[in-house]
């Protein structure tokens, strides 16, 4: 088997900003002293006059983005997820969400794969926070291909969008000619009959690996990629849940309030079936390599496989 190509979604994000800079002349990119890490530096190199470094002041950055959007710009405000959704939550809610401004938030270093920096920087709560803001669109791409598509879709969409990217290099899984991204549409990646695995972000790859292992055990798993957490593709999830009767959610995020929460809310109204939420189990993370952490918190293919087996009573 050939070596799988790995690219961090933040890398694809920075490249996409630079790529689309020309066709979106109103786009301006804001950062808070993290341009090298968030990869907005790639855009800065190409369009220095349209890159605004706000210094280490995320709350102000969100407000400046709001003001810029009111002059016709399409601001993309970028920092780590911890600060974008965490520190600046109220600015995002009141200065961007409430007036429903055309601001894009590029939040990188989301989840536990931040790695060595440890729990202070591992944001496992951002999806939950952003989901509660009326009118907020939330995109959580599974790989570099999808990350690029998200940036393009966000630029074409009018209104606030929260985009979630990761630090660690992850396998490219959507590199196929028929790949098509649309906000609000989930993707059925693998059909199955015994259990539905709804995954988001880098856990989509883990879900696919787990599904392959389950197949070998004689378990047929359906795998759905939910990149748009909000608005959620309820129809696709409910249809699949009705077919398989059991649902697993998988995300690099707290099991509280993220994809798991969103799917449970949809299913309890549309197709009440047993659900197993795979994610960070209401704990803070810790330092370690991304790979070691994914293994320890059972978020790699093997860990997801084990958890699904146990859910199915096959432990």
């Amino acid at each position: 088997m050939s070596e799988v190509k790995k690219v961090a979604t933040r890398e694809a994000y920075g490249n996409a900003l630079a790529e689309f800079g020309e066709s979106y002349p109103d786009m301006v990119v804001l950062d808070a002293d993290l341009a090298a890490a968030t990869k907005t530096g790639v855009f800065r190199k190409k369009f220095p006059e349209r890159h605004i470094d706000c210094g280490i002041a995320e709350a102000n950055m969100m407000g400046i983005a709001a003001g810029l959007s009111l002059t016709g710009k399409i601001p993309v405000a970028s920092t780590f997820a911890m600060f974008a959704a965490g520190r600046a939550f109220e600015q995002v809610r009141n200065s961007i969400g409430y007036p429903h401004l055309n601001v894009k938030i590029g939040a990188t270093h989301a989840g536990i794969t931040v790695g060595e920096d440890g729990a202070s920087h591992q944001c496992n709560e951002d999806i939950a926070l952003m989901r509660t803001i009326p009118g907020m669109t939330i995109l959580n791409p599974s790989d570099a291909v999808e990350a690029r598509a998200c940036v393009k879709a966000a630029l074409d969409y009018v209104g606030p969008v929260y985009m979630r990217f990761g630090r660690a290099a992850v396998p490219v899984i959507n590199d196929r000619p028929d790949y098509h991204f649309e906000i609000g549409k989930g993707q059925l990646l693998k059909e199955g009959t015994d259990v539905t695995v709804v995954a988001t972000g880098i856990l989509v790859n883990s879900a696919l690996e787990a599904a392959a292992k389950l197949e070998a055990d004689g378990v047929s798993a359906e795998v759905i990629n939910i990149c748009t957490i909000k608005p959620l593709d309820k129809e696709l999830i409910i249809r699949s849940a009705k077919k398989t009767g059991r649902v697993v959610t998988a995300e690099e995020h707290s099991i509280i309030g993220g994809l798991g929460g969103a799917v449970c809310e949809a299913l309890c109204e549309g197709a009440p079936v047993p659900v197993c939420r795979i994610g960070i189990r209401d704990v803070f993370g810790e330092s370690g390599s991304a790979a070691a952490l994914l293994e320890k918190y059972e978020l790699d293919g093997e860990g997801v496989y084990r958890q699904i087996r146990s859910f199915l009573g096959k432990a």
Partner: protein
Amino acid sequence: MDNLELMKHANDVRKGIVAAVHGAKAGHPGGSLSAADIFTFLYFEEMNIDPKNPKMENRDRFVLSKGHTAPGLYSALANRGYFPVEDLPTLRHLGSYLQGHPCLQHVPGVDMSSGSLGQGISAAVGMALGARMSGKEFRVYTLLGDGEIEEGQVWEAAMFAGHRKLDNLVVIVDNNGLQIDGPIDQVCSPNPIDKKFEAFNFHVINLKDGNDMDQIRAAFAEARATKGMPTAIIAHTLKGKGVSFMEGSVDWHGKAPNDAEFEIAMADLERIGEALCQK
């Protein structure tokens, strides 16, 4: 417009504030009244705006960072012709477009939603930056409370504006000296306010009497003439200005007059109005 005319408008703006807050049975009269002369000067003299075309592309922008004084902004907008003055008493009522704090989507003439203190100034800075990046000539004004500047975000925004030398930005601090819990220098003193803005690379104008139209006019002229740095106008005002029992009283920061108090307040303003007509 001459200063006497402006003073008459300011008095009408004050009547609208009292009527709005009385109608709402809630709201913030003290800080609305202290800033009434500044609201009036901005909307009747200083800013390039068109009430018939509130979204005019190259209009000057105003952000009420101290959003709780929405009655002051709404009354200025209504008196300027953005919407009927008769609507002011619907303030804060269910179904009224006059939300408790300024709302971009509901109120004609409101350039930015605000109310959570410290946030409006950042949006104003973003607008000023946007104007510069697009080569547009419009100016941006934002009004802050002196209690509001205890918020850290204010200084993040000020640092950025000073660093970027945004000379199309005017930050006005309504320095009436009182916040909800008491005098600002007893709660958590932001003083000296002028030296702080100077340190953040602003041109600072100490407006000795922010309720005096001559001095207000001179301050905004100086701001307009200032190049290469943003301007901060520290306007020393009287909280509750114009209503005898509200003046200088912290009790009227966020309280509505009852019917009897409403009558006294309106009589106060009628007297002031009559005196202005005698001039």
